[in-house]
Protein backbone atom coordinates (compact mmCIF):
# COMPACT_ATOMS: atom_id res chain seq x y z
CA UNK A 1 0.00 0.00 0.00
CA UNK A 2 1.87 2.99 -1.23
CA UNK A 3 -0.56 5.73 -0.36
CA UNK A 4 -1.62 6.44 3.18
CA UNK A 5 -4.21 4.19 4.71
CA UNK A 6 -6.43 6.75 6.40
CA UNK A 7 -8.07 4.29 8.76
CA UNK A 8 -4.85 3.38 10.55
CA UNK A 9 -4.08 5.65 13.49
CA UNK A 10 -0.55 6.53 14.48
CA UNK A 11 0.29 5.54 18.02
CA UNK A 12 1.05 8.52 20.22
CA UNK A 13 1.99 8.85 23.86
CA UNK A 14 0.30 11.22 26.24
CA UNK A 15 3.08 13.48 27.52
CA UNK A 16 1.04 15.74 29.73
CA UNK A 17 -2.49 16.10 31.03
CA UNK A 18 -3.95 19.35 32.31
CA UNK A 19 -7.15 19.23 34.27
CA UNK A 20 -8.92 22.31 32.95
CA UNK A 21 -12.21 21.91 34.78
CA UNK A 22 -13.74 19.35 37.11
CA UNK A 23 -17.16 17.82 37.65
CA UNK A 24 -19.43 15.55 35.63
CA UNK A 25 -18.51 17.38 32.42
CA UNK A 26 -14.83 17.85 33.23
CA UNK A 27 -12.36 19.04 30.61
CA UNK A 28 -8.80 17.81 30.30
CA UNK A 29 -6.14 18.90 27.84
CA UNK A 30 -3.93 16.12 26.53
CA UNK A 31 -0.56 16.79 24.97
CA UNK A 32 0.55 13.92 22.77
CA UNK A 33 3.73 12.92 20.99
CA UNK A 34 3.97 10.38 18.17
CA UNK A 35 5.91 7.24 18.98
CA UNK A 36 7.31 7.11 15.48
CA UNK A 37 9.60 10.10 15.01
CA UNK A 38 8.92 10.00 11.26
CA UNK A 39 5.26 10.82 11.74
CA UNK A 40 4.64 14.52 11.49
CA UNK A 41 1.34 16.20 11.51
CA UNK A 42 1.15 19.46 9.59
CA UNK A 43 -2.05 21.16 10.52
CA UNK A 44 -3.84 24.46 10.43
CA UNK A 45 -5.74 25.95 13.35
CA UNK A 46 -9.32 24.71 13.28
CA UNK A 47 -8.46 21.32 11.85
CA UNK A 48 -9.42 18.13 13.61
CA UNK A 49 -8.08 14.68 14.35
CA UNK A 50 -9.58 11.29 15.06
CA UNK A 51 -8.33 10.22 18.46
CA UNK A 52 -8.53 6.52 19.35
CA UNK A 53 -8.63 4.88 22.69
CA UNK A 54 -7.68 1.41 21.54
CA UNK A 55 -10.40 -1.09 22.28
CA UNK A 56 -13.00 1.57 22.98
CA UNK A 57 -13.28 3.52 19.76
CA UNK A 58 -12.37 6.81 18.26
CA UNK A 59 -13.84 10.27 18.11
CA UNK A 60 -13.20 13.48 16.24
CA UNK A 61 -11.65 16.34 18.22
CA UNK A 62 -10.52 19.80 17.30
CA UNK A 63 -6.82 20.33 17.75
CA UNK A 64 -6.75 22.79 20.61
CA UNK A 65 -3.30 24.25 20.22
CA UNK A 66 -1.82 26.43 17.51
CA UNK A 67 0.71 24.85 15.14
CA UNK A 68 3.04 27.68 16.09
CA UNK A 69 3.42 26.24 19.59
CA UNK A 70 5.05 23.02 18.48
CA UNK A 71 2.82 20.55 20.26
CA UNK A 72 -0.26 18.54 19.43
CA UNK A 73 -2.99 19.06 22.00
CA UNK A 74 -6.60 18.08 22.41
CA UNK A 75 -8.97 19.49 24.99
CA UNK A 76 -11.62 16.95 25.72
CA UNK A 77 -14.84 17.20 27.66
CA UNK A 78 -16.05 14.07 29.37
CA UNK A 79 -19.32 13.27 27.60
CA UNK A 80 -19.42 9.77 26.18
CA UNK A 81 -17.76 6.42 25.74
CA UNK A 82 -14.49 7.50 24.18
CA UNK A 83 -14.06 10.70 26.15
CA UNK A 84 -14.72 8.88 29.42
CA UNK A 85 -11.99 6.39 28.57
CA UNK A 86 -9.64 9.20 27.53
CA UNK A 87 -10.16 10.84 30.88
CA UNK A 88 -9.17 7.63 32.61
CA UNK A 89 -5.79 7.59 30.83
CA UNK A 90 -2.59 8.80 32.43
CA UNK A 91 0.65 10.35 31.24
CA UNK A 92 2.59 7.67 29.39
CA UNK A 93 -0.51 5.90 28.11
CA UNK A 94 -0.94 5.51 24.40
CA UNK A 95 -3.66 6.72 22.09
CA UNK A 96 -4.11 6.63 18.33
CA UNK A 97 -4.19 9.73 16.19
CA UNK A 98 -5.14 10.11 12.55
CA UNK A 99 -5.59 13.29 10.64
CA UNK A 100 -5.55 16.20 10.31
CA UNK A 101 -8.99 16.53 8.78
CA UNK A 102 -11.22 19.40 7.79
CA UNK A 103 -10.53 22.77 6.31
CA UNK A 104 -9.34 24.85 9.27
CA UNK A 105 -9.65 28.60 9.65
CA UNK A 106 -8.64 30.72 6.64
CA UNK A 107 -6.13 32.69 8.70
CA UNK A 108 -4.28 33.95 5.63
CA UNK A 109 -7.38 35.78 4.43
CA UNK A 110 -7.79 37.44 7.79
CA UNK A 111 -4.61 39.51 7.71
CA UNK A 112 -5.05 43.12 8.77
CA UNK A 113 -8.44 42.55 10.38
CA UNK A 114 -9.68 43.04 13.90
CA UNK A 115 -10.80 39.70 15.23
CA UNK A 116 -13.43 38.89 17.83
CA UNK A 117 -13.06 35.38 19.23
CA UNK A 118 -16.32 34.31 20.77
CA UNK A 119 -16.36 30.99 22.59
CA UNK A 120 -18.74 29.10 24.82
CA UNK A 121 -17.83 26.08 26.94
CA UNK A 122 -15.75 23.45 25.16
CA UNK A 123 -16.03 25.61 22.03
CA UNK A 124 -12.97 27.32 23.45
CA UNK A 125 -10.81 24.38 22.26
CA UNK A 126 -10.70 25.27 18.53
CA UNK A 127 -10.81 28.98 19.38
CA UNK A 128 -7.71 28.57 21.53
CA UNK A 129 -5.86 27.04 18.58
CA UNK A 130 -6.69 29.86 16.19
CA UNK A 131 -6.36 32.56 18.84
CA UNK A 132 -2.86 31.47 19.79
CA UNK A 133 -1.95 31.31 16.13
CA UNK A 134 -3.10 34.87 15.57
CA UNK A 135 -1.41 36.08 18.75
CA UNK A 136 1.83 34.47 17.60
CA UNK A 137 1.52 36.38 14.32
CA UNK A 138 0.11 39.49 15.92
CA UNK A 139 1.90 41.91 13.66
CA UNK A 140 -0.21 40.66 10.71
CA UNK A 141 -3.54 41.30 12.38
CA UNK A 142 -5.46 44.18 13.97
CA UNK A 143 -7.04 44.38 17.40
CA UNK A 144 -7.95 41.11 19.09
CA UNK A 145 -10.84 40.40 21.44
CA UNK A 146 -11.92 37.28 23.29
CA UNK A 147 -15.39 36.82 24.72
CA UNK A 148 -15.46 33.54 26.55
CA UNK A 149 -18.44 32.17 28.42
CA UNK A 150 -19.19 29.12 30.54
CA UNK A 151 -21.82 28.02 33.04
CA UNK A 152 -19.84 29.02 36.11
CA UNK A 153 -16.41 30.48 36.73
CA UNK A 154 -15.16 26.99 37.55
CA UNK A 155 -16.09 25.80 34.06
CA UNK A 156 -13.71 28.21 32.31
CA UNK A 157 -10.78 26.35 30.76
CA UNK A 158 -7.22 27.48 29.98
CA UNK A 159 -7.37 29.94 32.86
CA UNK A 160 -3.65 30.62 33.34
CA UNK A 161 -2.98 30.84 29.63
CA UNK A 162 -5.75 33.34 28.97
CA UNK A 163 -4.79 35.37 32.04
CA UNK A 164 -1.24 35.60 30.74
CA UNK A 165 -2.41 36.73 27.30
CA UNK A 166 -4.59 39.35 28.90
CA UNK A 167 -1.88 40.65 31.17
CA UNK A 168 0.57 40.77 28.32
CA UNK A 169 -1.86 43.05 26.53
CA UNK A 170 -2.06 40.77 23.52
CA UNK A 171 -5.79 40.54 23.59
CA UNK A 172 -8.82 42.14 25.20
CA UNK A 173 -10.54 39.41 27.21
CA UNK A 174 -14.10 39.39 28.57
CA UNK A 175 -15.40 36.41 30.49
CA UNK A 176 -19.03 35.65 31.08
CA UNK A 177 -20.83 33.10 33.20
CA UNK A 178 -24.47 32.08 33.30
CA UNK A 179 -25.04 32.06 37.04
CA UNK A 180 -24.29 35.07 39.24
CA UNK A 181 -21.18 34.96 41.40
CA UNK A 182 -19.68 37.66 43.59
CA UNK A 183 -17.36 39.99 41.71
CA UNK A 184 -19.01 39.33 38.32
CA UNK A 185 -20.91 42.27 36.84
CA UNK A 186 -24.47 41.28 35.96
CA UNK A 187 -25.80 41.98 32.47
CA UNK A 188 -29.45 41.97 31.47
CA UNK A 189 -30.06 38.98 29.22
CA UNK A 190 -33.50 40.26 28.25
CA UNK A 191 -32.40 43.73 27.20
CA UNK A 192 -28.74 43.30 26.34
CA UNK A 193 -28.48 46.65 24.60
CA UNK A 194 -29.68 48.44 27.71
CA UNK A 195 -27.18 46.67 29.95
CA UNK A 196 -24.73 49.01 31.53
CA UNK A 197 -21.41 48.10 30.07
CA UNK A 198 -18.34 49.28 31.86
CA UNK A 199 -15.41 48.85 29.45
CA UNK A 200 -13.06 48.34 32.36
CA UNK A 201 -14.97 45.30 33.65
CA UNK A 202 -13.65 41.95 32.55
CA UNK A 203 -16.08 39.56 34.18
CA UNK A 204 -19.81 39.46 33.53
CA UNK A 205 -22.80 37.41 34.43
CA UNK A 206 -25.00 36.83 31.38
CA UNK A 207 -25.10 34.93 28.14
CA UNK A 208 -22.25 35.28 25.72
CA UNK A 209 -24.65 36.83 23.21
CA UNK A 210 -25.61 39.42 25.82
CA UNK A 211 -21.99 40.40 26.31
CA UNK A 212 -21.54 40.63 22.54
CA UNK A 213 -24.48 43.05 22.36
CA UNK A 214 -23.49 45.03 25.43
CA UNK A 215 -19.93 45.33 24.25
CA UNK A 216 -21.17 46.65 20.89
CA UNK A 217 -18.60 44.75 18.82
CA UNK A 218 -17.92 46.92 15.78
CA UNK A 219 -18.09 45.30 12.35
CA UNK A 220 -15.69 47.70 10.61
CA UNK A 221 -12.68 45.85 9.24
CA UNK A 222 -13.48 43.00 11.61
CA UNK A 223 -14.51 39.39 11.69
CA UNK A 224 -15.86 37.11 14.36
CA UNK A 225 -15.06 33.49 15.16
CA UNK A 226 -17.85 31.81 17.10
CA UNK A 227 -17.57 28.34 18.59
CA UNK A 228 -19.80 26.78 21.17
CA UNK A 229 -23.12 25.06 21.66
CA UNK A 230 -25.65 25.56 18.83
CA UNK A 231 -27.93 27.82 20.84
CA UNK A 232 -25.03 30.09 21.78
CA UNK A 233 -23.85 30.30 18.17
CA UNK A 234 -27.36 31.19 17.07
CA UNK A 235 -27.86 33.93 19.64
CA UNK A 236 -24.42 35.40 19.10
CA UNK A 237 -25.01 35.60 15.36
CA UNK A 238 -28.30 37.36 16.04
CA UNK A 239 -26.54 39.83 18.33
CA UNK A 240 -23.86 40.53 15.74
CA UNK A 241 -26.45 40.95 13.01
CA UNK A 242 -28.15 43.61 15.08
CA UNK A 243 -24.85 45.42 15.37
CA UNK A 244 -24.61 45.54 11.59
CA UNK A 245 -22.36 42.52 10.95
CA UNK A 246 -22.55 40.83 7.58
CA UNK A 247 -22.91 37.05 7.28
CA UNK A 248 -19.54 36.80 5.51
CA UNK A 249 -17.77 38.34 8.48
CA UNK A 250 -18.89 35.61 10.86
CA UNK A 251 -17.03 32.33 11.04
CA UNK A 252 -18.31 29.38 12.99
CA UNK A 253 -17.65 25.68 13.33
CA UNK A 254 -20.19 22.91 12.93
CA UNK A 255 -20.08 19.38 14.14
CA UNK A 256 -21.93 16.17 13.53
CA UNK A 257 -21.48 12.52 14.35
CA UNK A 258 -18.45 11.28 12.43
CA UNK A 259 -16.96 7.87 11.90
CA UNK A 260 -14.49 8.00 9.02
CA UNK A 261 -13.43 11.65 8.91
CA UNK A 262 -12.72 11.39 5.19
CA UNK A 263 -16.14 11.90 3.65
CA UNK A 264 -17.06 8.26 3.05
CA UNK A 265 -19.21 6.98 5.90
CA UNK A 266 -22.11 9.26 5.09
CA UNK A 267 -23.34 10.48 8.45
CA UNK A 268 -22.01 14.00 9.03
CA UNK A 269 -23.68 15.56 6.02
CA UNK A 270 -25.83 18.64 6.30
CA UNK A 271 -27.53 18.58 2.96
CA UNK A 272 -24.79 17.93 0.44
CA UNK A 273 -22.04 19.28 2.68
CA UNK A 274 -19.83 16.85 4.56
CA UNK A 275 -18.77 18.52 7.78
CA UNK A 276 -15.68 16.31 8.09
CA UNK A 277 -14.06 17.31 4.80
CA UNK A 278 -15.88 20.50 3.74
CA UNK A 279 -15.92 21.89 7.29
CA UNK A 280 -15.86 22.21 10.19
CA UNK A 281 -15.23 25.92 9.56
CA UNK A 282 -17.92 27.78 7.66
CA UNK A 283 -18.92 31.39 7.33
CA UNK A 284 -22.42 32.15 8.42
CA UNK A 285 -23.15 33.00 4.81
CA UNK A 286 -22.32 29.39 3.89
CA UNK A 287 -24.29 27.98 6.79
CA UNK A 288 -27.34 29.94 5.73
CA UNK A 289 -27.26 28.32 2.31
CA UNK A 290 -27.26 24.83 3.78
CA UNK A 291 -30.44 22.86 3.99
CA UNK A 292 -32.11 22.95 7.35
CA UNK A 293 -31.17 19.36 8.06
CA UNK A 294 -31.07 19.53 11.85
Amino acid at each position, binding site marked *: *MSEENHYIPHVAEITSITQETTGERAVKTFKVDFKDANVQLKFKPGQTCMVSV*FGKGESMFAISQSPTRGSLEFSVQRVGRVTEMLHELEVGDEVGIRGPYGNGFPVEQWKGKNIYFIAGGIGMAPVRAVMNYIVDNKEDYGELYLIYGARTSRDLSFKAEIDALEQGGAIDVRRTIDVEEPGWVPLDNKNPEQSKFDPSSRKFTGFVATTVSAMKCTPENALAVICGPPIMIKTCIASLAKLGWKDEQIYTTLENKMKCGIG*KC*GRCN*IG*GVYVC*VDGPVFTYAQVKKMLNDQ
Partner: protein
Amino acid sequence: MSKYILKKEKVVDALNALGNANAVYIPVKNKRGLVEYKELGRDAAAADAKFDCRPDVPPKAILFPQTQVLFTFKKVDGKIEVVPTEPDDREKIIFGVRPCDAIAIAVMDKVFIGGKFVDTYYKARRERTAVISIACDGPADSTCFCPSTGGSPAATEGSDVLLYDVGDSYYVEVVSDKGRKILESLSASLETPSPEQEKRKDEIVRKAEAAEGFTRSITAESISKLDSSFDSKYWDDVSRRCLSCGACTYYCPTCHCFDINDEPGRKRVRTWDSCQFSNFTMHTSSHNPRTAKAQRLRNRYYHKFKYSKDNTGRYLCVGCGRCIALCPAGLDITKVISEVK
Protein backbone atom coordinates in the same frame (compact mmCIF):
# COMPACT_ATOMS: atom_id res chain seq x y z
CA MET B 1 -10.88 -7.67 -33.02
CA SER B 2 -12.86 -7.49 -29.87
CA LYS B 3 -16.10 -9.31 -30.59
CA TYR B 4 -16.54 -12.97 -29.90
CA ILE B 5 -19.07 -15.66 -29.33
CA LEU B 6 -19.15 -17.83 -26.24
CA LYS B 7 -21.46 -20.80 -26.62
CA LYS B 8 -23.65 -21.28 -23.57
CA GLU B 9 -22.63 -24.92 -23.35
CA LYS B 10 -19.06 -23.75 -22.89
CA VAL B 11 -19.83 -21.33 -20.09
CA VAL B 12 -19.26 -23.87 -17.33
CA ASP B 13 -15.85 -24.76 -18.74
CA ALA B 14 -15.00 -21.12 -19.18
CA LEU B 15 -15.96 -20.35 -15.57
CA ASN B 16 -13.89 -23.23 -14.29
CA ALA B 17 -10.97 -22.14 -16.42
CA LEU B 18 -11.20 -18.63 -14.98
CA GLY B 19 -11.54 -20.12 -11.53
CA ASN B 20 -8.09 -21.67 -11.77
CA ALA B 21 -6.31 -18.35 -11.54
CA ASN B 22 -8.96 -16.11 -10.03
CA ALA B 23 -11.59 -15.97 -7.36
CA VAL B 24 -14.71 -16.05 -9.52
CA TYR B 25 -18.07 -14.88 -8.17
CA ILE B 26 -21.25 -16.02 -9.87
CA PRO B 27 -24.93 -15.54 -9.09
CA VAL B 28 -26.49 -18.69 -7.70
CA LYS B 29 -29.78 -19.50 -6.08
CA ASN B 30 -29.47 -20.16 -2.37
CA LYS B 31 -31.52 -22.55 -0.27
CA ARG B 32 -34.25 -20.01 0.24
CA GLY B 33 -34.60 -19.12 -3.40
CA LEU B 34 -32.62 -15.93 -3.29
CA VAL B 35 -30.09 -15.33 -6.05
CA GLU B 36 -26.82 -14.00 -4.65
CA TYR B 37 -23.15 -13.95 -5.63
CA LYS B 38 -21.09 -16.85 -4.35
CA GLU B 39 -17.50 -17.78 -4.86
CA LEU B 40 -16.91 -20.49 -7.39
CA GLY B 41 -15.33 -23.58 -5.94
CA ARG B 42 -15.84 -22.42 -2.37
CA ASP B 43 -19.61 -21.92 -2.10
CA ALA B 44 -20.88 -22.65 -5.59
CA ALA B 45 -20.33 -24.81 -8.65
CA ALA B 46 -20.17 -23.38 -12.16
CA ALA B 47 -23.15 -25.44 -13.22
CA ASP B 48 -25.34 -23.68 -10.64
CA ALA B 49 -24.74 -20.25 -12.12
CA LYS B 50 -27.99 -18.44 -12.68
CA PHE B 51 -27.71 -15.79 -15.34
CA ASP B 52 -31.32 -15.35 -16.36
CA CYS B 53 -32.48 -12.88 -13.73
CA ARG B 54 -31.43 -9.84 -11.78
CA PRO B 55 -29.75 -11.27 -8.67
CA ASP B 56 -31.65 -10.42 -5.50
CA VAL B 57 -28.46 -9.33 -3.80
CA PRO B 58 -26.04 -6.96 -5.52
CA PRO B 59 -22.33 -7.80 -5.77
CA LYS B 60 -21.53 -4.87 -3.47
CA ALA B 61 -20.19 -7.01 -0.65
CA ILE B 62 -17.41 -8.45 -2.80
CA LEU B 63 -15.77 -5.04 -2.98
CA PHE B 64 -17.15 -3.60 0.23
CA PRO B 65 -17.75 -6.43 2.71
CA GLN B 66 -20.45 -5.97 5.29
CA THR B 67 -17.96 -6.67 8.04
CA GLN B 68 -14.33 -5.83 7.57
CA VAL B 69 -11.58 -5.76 10.17
CA LEU B 70 -9.58 -2.59 9.54
CA PHE B 71 -6.80 -3.44 11.91
CA THR B 72 -6.01 -5.35 15.04
CA PHE B 73 -3.74 -4.13 17.76
CA LYS B 74 -1.58 -5.85 20.29
CA LYS B 75 0.46 -4.92 23.26
CA VAL B 76 4.15 -5.69 23.04
CA ASP B 77 6.03 -4.93 26.26
CA GLY B 78 3.14 -2.74 27.32
CA LYS B 79 3.31 -0.74 24.09
CA ILE B 80 0.54 -0.73 21.54
CA GLU B 81 1.24 -1.95 18.04
CA VAL B 82 -1.29 -1.50 15.28
CA VAL B 83 -1.45 -4.29 12.72
CA PRO B 84 -3.35 -3.29 9.58
CA THR B 85 -5.37 -6.07 7.98
CA GLU B 86 -3.63 -7.52 4.96
CA PRO B 87 -5.69 -6.81 1.87
CA ASP B 88 -7.30 -9.63 -0.04
CA ASP B 89 -4.88 -9.77 -2.92
CA ARG B 90 -6.52 -12.50 -4.97
CA GLU B 91 -7.47 -11.56 -8.49
CA LYS B 92 -11.25 -11.52 -8.62
CA ILE B 93 -13.77 -11.77 -11.40
CA ILE B 94 -17.44 -11.06 -10.88
CA PHE B 95 -19.22 -12.91 -13.64
CA GLY B 96 -22.77 -12.31 -14.76
CA VAL B 97 -23.21 -8.85 -13.34
CA ARG B 98 -26.20 -6.86 -14.57
CA PRO B 99 -25.32 -3.54 -16.22
CA CYS B 100 -27.00 -1.59 -13.40
CA ASP B 101 -24.77 -3.27 -10.84
CA ALA B 102 -21.73 -2.65 -13.01
CA ILE B 103 -22.58 1.04 -13.17
CA ALA B 104 -23.05 0.91 -9.42
CA ILE B 105 -19.46 -0.25 -9.11
CA ALA B 106 -18.35 2.75 -11.17
CA VAL B 107 -20.40 4.96 -8.86
CA MET B 108 -18.84 3.38 -5.77
CA ASP B 109 -15.41 3.95 -7.31
CA LYS B 110 -16.16 7.66 -7.27
CA VAL B 111 -17.15 7.52 -3.63
CA PHE B 112 -14.28 5.43 -2.35
CA ILE B 113 -11.43 6.16 -4.77
CA GLY B 114 -12.42 9.52 -6.20
CA GLY B 115 -12.32 12.64 -4.10
CA LYS B 116 -9.69 13.93 -1.75
CA PHE B 117 -9.19 10.76 0.23
CA VAL B 118 -8.76 7.23 -1.02
CA ASP B 119 -10.26 4.26 0.80
CA THR B 120 -7.37 1.83 0.89
CA TYR B 121 -9.44 -1.24 1.61
CA TYR B 122 -11.90 -0.68 -1.21
CA LYS B 123 -9.17 0.25 -3.65
CA ALA B 124 -7.15 -2.86 -2.90
CA ARG B 125 -10.10 -5.06 -3.78
CA ARG B 126 -11.29 -2.98 -6.66
CA GLU B 127 -7.95 -2.92 -8.44
CA ARG B 128 -7.90 -6.69 -8.50
CA THR B 129 -11.47 -7.11 -9.63
CA ALA B 130 -12.78 -7.51 -13.13
CA VAL B 131 -16.45 -7.23 -13.98
CA ILE B 132 -18.02 -9.38 -16.66
CA SER B 133 -21.58 -8.30 -17.24
CA ILE B 134 -24.56 -9.62 -19.11
CA ALA B 135 -26.77 -7.11 -20.88
CA CYS B 136 -30.44 -7.31 -20.06
CA ASP B 137 -32.84 -7.99 -22.90
CA GLY B 138 -35.38 -5.45 -21.71
CA PRO B 139 -36.14 -4.95 -18.02
CA ALA B 140 -34.92 -7.89 -15.96
CA ASP B 141 -37.60 -7.32 -13.38
CA SER B 142 -40.84 -5.39 -13.13
CA THR B 143 -39.18 -3.08 -10.60
CA CYS B 144 -36.33 -2.04 -12.93
CA PHE B 145 -35.94 1.58 -14.02
CA CYS B 146 -32.29 1.95 -15.03
CA PRO B 147 -32.91 4.20 -18.08
CA SER B 148 -34.27 6.87 -15.73
CA THR B 149 -30.99 7.12 -13.87
CA GLY B 150 -28.73 7.39 -16.88
CA GLY B 151 -28.19 3.67 -17.21
CA SER B 152 -29.32 1.23 -19.82
CA PRO B 153 -29.98 -2.51 -20.03
CA ALA B 154 -26.95 -2.72 -22.29
CA ALA B 155 -24.68 -0.14 -20.64
CA THR B 156 -20.98 -0.88 -20.65
CA GLU B 157 -19.92 1.48 -17.87
CA GLY B 158 -18.22 -0.29 -15.00
CA SER B 159 -17.87 -3.51 -16.98
CA ASP B 160 -14.70 -4.96 -18.41
CA VAL B 161 -16.54 -7.37 -20.67
CA LEU B 162 -20.17 -7.23 -21.68
CA LEU B 163 -22.07 -10.31 -22.82
CA TYR B 164 -25.28 -10.29 -24.82
CA ASP B 165 -27.59 -13.26 -24.66
CA VAL B 166 -28.18 -14.12 -28.32
CA GLY B 167 -30.01 -17.39 -27.88
CA ASP B 168 -27.74 -20.41 -27.54
CA SER B 169 -24.66 -18.23 -27.16
CA TYR B 170 -23.32 -15.11 -25.56
CA TYR B 171 -22.10 -12.39 -27.83
CA VAL B 172 -18.94 -11.12 -26.15
CA GLU B 173 -17.88 -7.50 -26.31
CA VAL B 174 -14.58 -6.36 -24.83
CA VAL B 175 -14.89 -3.10 -22.94
CA SER B 176 -11.53 -2.61 -21.25
CA ASP B 177 -7.96 -3.83 -21.37
CA LYS B 178 -8.57 -5.77 -18.20
CA GLY B 179 -11.39 -7.52 -20.04
CA ARG B 180 -9.19 -8.20 -23.04
CA LYS B 181 -6.61 -9.93 -20.89
CA ILE B 182 -9.23 -12.14 -19.31
CA LEU B 183 -10.61 -13.14 -22.69
CA GLU B 184 -7.13 -14.03 -23.92
CA SER B 185 -7.06 -16.76 -21.33
CA LEU B 186 -10.36 -18.04 -22.72
CA SER B 187 -9.45 -17.82 -26.39
CA ALA B 188 -9.91 -21.56 -26.86
CA SER B 189 -13.63 -21.32 -26.05
CA LEU B 190 -14.32 -18.26 -28.16
CA GLU B 191 -15.62 -18.14 -31.70
CA THR B 192 -16.41 -15.48 -34.25
CA PRO B 193 -19.93 -14.07 -34.32
CA SER B 194 -22.15 -14.79 -37.31
CA PRO B 195 -24.10 -11.98 -39.01
CA GLU B 196 -27.24 -13.47 -37.50
CA GLN B 197 -25.77 -13.12 -34.01
CA GLU B 198 -24.60 -9.59 -34.78
CA LYS B 199 -28.17 -8.75 -35.71
CA ARG B 200 -29.55 -10.27 -32.55
CA LYS B 201 -27.10 -8.26 -30.47
CA ASP B 202 -27.95 -5.06 -32.33
CA GLU B 203 -31.57 -5.71 -31.54
CA ILE B 204 -30.79 -5.91 -27.80
CA VAL B 205 -28.87 -2.64 -28.04
CA ARG B 206 -31.71 -0.99 -29.95
CA LYS B 207 -34.26 -2.11 -27.37
CA ALA B 208 -32.00 -0.88 -24.60
CA GLU B 209 -31.57 2.52 -26.20
CA ALA B 210 -35.29 2.85 -26.67
CA ALA B 211 -35.81 1.75 -23.05
CA GLU B 212 -38.44 -0.65 -24.31
CA GLY B 213 -40.61 -2.46 -21.84
CA PHE B 214 -39.96 -0.39 -18.74
CA THR B 215 -43.03 0.30 -16.65
CA ARG B 216 -41.36 2.42 -14.01
CA SER B 217 -39.46 5.63 -14.43
CA ILE B 218 -38.34 8.80 -12.75
CA THR B 219 -38.28 11.94 -14.80
CA ALA B 220 -35.61 14.61 -14.55
CA GLU B 221 -38.45 17.02 -14.01
CA SER B 222 -39.64 15.32 -10.85
CA ILE B 223 -36.08 15.09 -9.59
CA SER B 224 -35.68 18.81 -10.11
CA LYS B 225 -38.65 19.31 -7.81
CA LEU B 226 -36.40 18.16 -4.96
CA ASP B 227 -34.74 21.56 -5.10
CA SER B 228 -37.77 23.20 -3.58
CA SER B 229 -39.44 20.47 -1.58
CA PHE B 230 -36.97 19.95 1.25
CA ASP B 231 -39.30 21.42 3.83
CA SER B 232 -42.41 19.93 2.30
CA LYS B 233 -44.92 18.12 4.48
CA TYR B 234 -44.81 15.45 1.80
CA TRP B 235 -41.93 13.72 3.56
CA ASP B 236 -43.99 13.29 6.72
CA ASP B 237 -46.77 11.68 4.75
CA VAL B 238 -44.64 9.43 2.61
CA SER B 239 -42.47 8.24 5.49
CA ARG B 240 -45.47 7.27 7.57
CA ARG B 241 -45.27 3.67 6.49
CA CYS B 242 -41.47 3.43 6.52
CA LEU B 243 -40.35 0.98 9.22
CA SER B 244 -36.87 2.50 9.60
CA CYS B 245 -35.30 -0.84 8.85
CA GLY B 246 -32.23 -1.09 6.70
CA ALA B 247 -33.49 -3.34 3.93
CA CYS B 248 -33.43 -0.68 1.19
CA THR B 249 -29.93 0.45 2.04
CA TYR B 250 -28.38 -2.95 2.62
CA TYR B 251 -29.57 -4.25 -0.73
CA CYS B 252 -28.80 -1.05 -2.61
CA PRO B 253 -25.78 -1.47 -4.88
CA THR B 254 -24.67 2.11 -4.26
CA CYS B 255 -25.48 2.66 -0.58
CA HIS B 256 -22.14 2.79 1.14
CA CYS B 257 -22.65 4.24 4.62
CA PHE B 258 -20.67 2.47 7.26
CA ASP B 259 -19.90 2.39 10.93
CA ILE B 260 -16.57 1.83 12.65
CA ASN B 261 -16.37 0.21 16.06
CA ASP B 262 -13.80 -1.32 18.32
CA GLU B 263 -14.85 -4.83 19.22
CA PRO B 264 -13.63 -7.45 21.66
CA GLY B 265 -10.57 -9.22 20.37
CA ARG B 266 -8.67 -5.96 19.97
CA LYS B 267 -9.88 -5.15 16.56
CA ARG B 268 -11.44 -2.20 14.83
CA VAL B 269 -14.23 -3.25 12.54
CA ARG B 270 -15.98 -1.49 9.75
CA THR B 271 -19.56 -2.60 9.13
CA TRP B 272 -22.33 -1.47 6.87
CA ASP B 273 -24.68 1.01 8.43
CA SER B 274 -27.97 2.44 7.31
CA CYS B 275 -29.04 6.07 7.29
CA GLN B 276 -32.54 4.80 8.07
CA PHE B 277 -31.62 3.63 11.58
CA SER B 278 -32.66 6.15 14.19
CA ASN B 279 -29.28 6.20 15.91
CA PHE B 280 -27.32 6.74 12.74
CA THR B 281 -26.64 10.41 13.33
CA MET B 282 -27.11 10.58 17.08
CA HIS B 283 -24.43 12.62 18.82
CA THR B 284 -22.91 11.54 22.11
CA SER B 285 -24.75 14.41 23.73
CA SER B 286 -28.02 12.70 22.64
CA HIS B 287 -28.71 15.47 20.13
CA ASN B 288 -29.86 13.88 16.90
CA PRO B 289 -30.06 15.94 13.72
CA ARG B 290 -32.31 13.38 12.04
CA THR B 291 -34.63 12.15 14.79
CA ALA B 292 -37.73 11.68 12.70
CA LYS B 293 -37.98 8.97 10.12
CA ALA B 294 -39.26 11.57 7.67
CA GLN B 295 -35.91 13.31 7.93
CA ARG B 296 -34.02 10.09 7.45
CA LEU B 297 -36.06 8.97 4.50
CA ARG B 298 -35.74 12.40 2.92
CA ASN B 299 -31.99 12.30 3.45
CA ARG B 300 -31.75 9.01 1.58
CA TYR B 301 -33.63 10.28 -1.45
CA TYR B 302 -31.85 13.62 -1.43
CA HIS B 303 -28.51 11.94 -1.15
CA LYS B 304 -29.31 9.71 -4.09
CA PHE B 305 -30.80 12.28 -6.41
CA LYS B 306 -29.56 15.68 -5.30
CA TYR B 307 -26.48 15.79 -3.09
CA SER B 308 -24.64 13.23 -5.13
CA LYS B 309 -25.63 14.85 -8.40
CA ASP B 310 -24.52 18.25 -7.12
CA ASN B 311 -21.23 16.96 -5.75
CA THR B 312 -20.13 14.34 -8.25
CA GLY B 313 -22.35 14.94 -11.25
CA ARG B 314 -24.27 11.70 -11.09
CA TYR B 315 -27.10 10.04 -9.26
CA LEU B 316 -26.40 7.62 -6.47
CA CYS B 317 -29.10 5.35 -7.84
CA VAL B 318 -28.74 3.00 -10.76
CA GLY B 319 -32.37 1.97 -11.05
CA CYS B 320 -31.93 -1.67 -10.12
CA GLY B 321 -35.27 -1.61 -8.31
CA ARG B 322 -34.21 -3.85 -5.43
CA CYS B 323 -35.38 -1.40 -2.80
CA ILE B 324 -38.81 -1.51 -4.41
CA ALA B 325 -38.88 -5.28 -4.47
CA LEU B 326 -37.67 -5.67 -0.91
CA CYS B 327 -39.29 -2.82 0.99
CA PRO B 328 -41.46 -4.48 3.66
CA ALA B 329 -43.77 -1.48 3.60
CA GLY B 330 -44.14 -1.30 -0.16
CA LEU B 331 -42.34 2.02 -0.60
CA ASP B 332 -41.49 2.57 -4.24
CA ILE B 333 -38.62 4.95 -4.94
CA THR B 334 -39.96 5.81 -8.39
CA LYS B 335 -43.33 6.71 -6.95
CA VAL B 336 -41.87 8.65 -4.04
CA ILE B 337 -39.76 10.82 -6.33
CA SER B 338 -42.45 11.19 -8.97
CA GLU B 339 -44.98 12.42 -6.46
CA VAL B 340 -42.71 14.89 -4.68
CA LYS B 341 -44.48 18.12 -3.97
